[in-house]
């Protein structure tokens, strides 16, 4: 190519973004996947192929932790899908009602937990649910259900679900906002046409609005999936890197952190950490592909 014909301004415009993005995001991503194929023997980096993954999936000690973390992560995701997204849709449906007063006020208030950091949310709920402070048992006492109280964060069988619900509490604002935005784009004529045919209230929601916002629900689902499978902060803030009690709240993010940095008697191992990152990458990639090719292309879109 003729050197004079290169339009240098294009290069100048693109270069900073491409360089930073490639150097700090894309290159480390692939480098991490490469590191997963090595191990350290006597201070030297040795290529071992897929051995780390074999250890991760099949070695009794590692496999137990890995499948535990993966299973917990799936449960974490399921709770978000079953609780967060329906509540978000319901709130959005209420807020989008045309003549509702104070809608902006409700919307801003319900979004507040979403802007708080995991550290604040984790500790605030830890204090509120704590048996020492007694706010949660006290409030249950008010409504006569004190017998239902248990130290939820300290019990193996409840801790993960409790944390998932705390996370739901924090992030319900996001599906609410996105669905609200989608509902606003539905033209008034369609709803009026439904009314003429006697479709109002609940029926209008189920038969007219819901089919029209399905694409937005799809986007929210994949955002939830990606967010949940690289979650870490809330569990770490509330339960620490050991994801107690007895690893019952361990998810892939905390498992990777612990493996990478080590804890108590176990030394940190960047190569096994990379292998876990590789597994997370694969899971997220599979999820995104299922969404892009399996769901998004088949979803019926209506021309409005």
């Amino acid at each position, binding site marked *: 190519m003729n050197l004079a014909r290169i*339009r240098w301004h*294009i290069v*100048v*415009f*693109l270069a*900073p*973004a*491409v360089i*930073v*993005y490639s150097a*700090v*995001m894309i290159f*480390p*991503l692939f*480098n*991490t996947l490469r*590191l997963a194929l090595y191990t350290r023997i006597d201070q030297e980096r040795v290529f071992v192929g897929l051995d780390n993954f074999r250890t991760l999936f099949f070695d009794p000690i590692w496999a137990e932790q890995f499948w535990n973390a993966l299973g917990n992560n799936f449960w974490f995701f399921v709770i978000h899908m079953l609780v967060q997204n329906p509540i978000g849709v*319901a709130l959005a449906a*209420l807020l989008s*009602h*045309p*003549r*509702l007063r104070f809608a902006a006020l*409700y919307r*801003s208030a*319900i979004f*507040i*937990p*979403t*802007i*708080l*950091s*995991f*550290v*604040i949310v984790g*500790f*605030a709920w830890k*204090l*509120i649910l704590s048996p020492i*402070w*007694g*706010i949660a048992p*006290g409030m249950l006492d008010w409504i006569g259900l004190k017998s239902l109280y248990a130290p939820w964060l300290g019990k193996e069988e409840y801790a993960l679900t409790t944390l998932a619900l705390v996370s739901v*509490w924090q992030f319900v604002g996001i599906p609410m*906002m996105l669905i609200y*935005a989608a509902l606003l784009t539905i033209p008034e004529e369609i709803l009026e046409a439904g*009314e003429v045919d006697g479709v*109002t209230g609940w029926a209008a929601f189920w038969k007219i609005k819901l089919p029209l916002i399905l694409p937005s629900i799809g*986007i929210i689902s*994949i955002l939830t999936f990606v967010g949940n499978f*690289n979650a870490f*902060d809330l569990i770490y*803030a509330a339960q620490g890197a050991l994801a107690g009690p007895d690893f019952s709240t361990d998810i892939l993010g905390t498992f990777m952190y612990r493996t990478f*940095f080590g804890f108590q008697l176990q030394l940190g191992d*960047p190569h096994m*950490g*990379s292998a876990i*990152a590789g597994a*997370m990458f694969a899971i*997220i990639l599979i999820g995104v592909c299922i969404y892009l090719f399996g769901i998004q292309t088949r979803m019926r879109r209506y021309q409005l």
Partner: protein
Amino acid sequence: MNKARSNPLNTAMMHGALIVYTLIALFPVFVILINSFKERRSIFREPLALPNSESFSTIGYETVMQQGDFFLYFQNSMIVTVASLFFVLLFGAMAAYALSEYRFKGNMLMGLYLALGIMIPIRIGTVAILEMMVATGLVNTLWALILVYTAQGLPLAVFILSEFMRQVSDDLKNAGRIDGLSEYTIFFRLVLPLVRPAMATVAVFNMIPIWNDLWFPLILAPAEETKTLTLGSQVFIGQFVTDWNAVLSALSMAILPVLVLYVIFSRQLIRGITSGAVK
């Protein structure tokens, strides 16, 4: 007006449901804030009562001020957030302009390459990022965080901004070219001011996750002098677990800056989300 859509009973029920959920959303924040101003005994005896002249105390805040270097943490968070936003917006807008304005070989491919990062979280590459920061000596500096957040914010910024830049009129740019303005002047003087609303949306979207992030400060910059407010409060609270006054005050101090930012920017944020910028 149609009866079915403005039934007073329905309206009351809708307000009821929304009020209940609003209370659920605000209750924990409220409890933390009111109790941070009480002395220890009242915190436990009547956790839901407002502080009065008898129970009022700022002992928690005094402990926090003496023990933790919250002003330094706050300053670090400020520097990291503002600098990252600056680079995300500048680099993102430049790349978006190149992609939306000029036709060149590989334009499509470059767009796709930059969009990859929208779906793939940067955390996956943490091991190699840390290795790189150690090798370049950037570990435990604020630059490490600024670089990571810039890279993290760029894909979505380029995506959103190039959508908006396609809407800037060609006549305006061509008029500039006829007047002999350079491509750089056209971009900085003519195009950038026109996409300011979109830039604000991108900034608000990026601001909260950067400010609240715990993962990268914990891994890349855990040193005392580079702690961000999020990491600083995490460590502080971890050390003072049994001093409830201090913990509640530290939590309140971490909540307040975000709340202030939210009150200032909430309109922008909500408009950004509802205008479909993320679709």
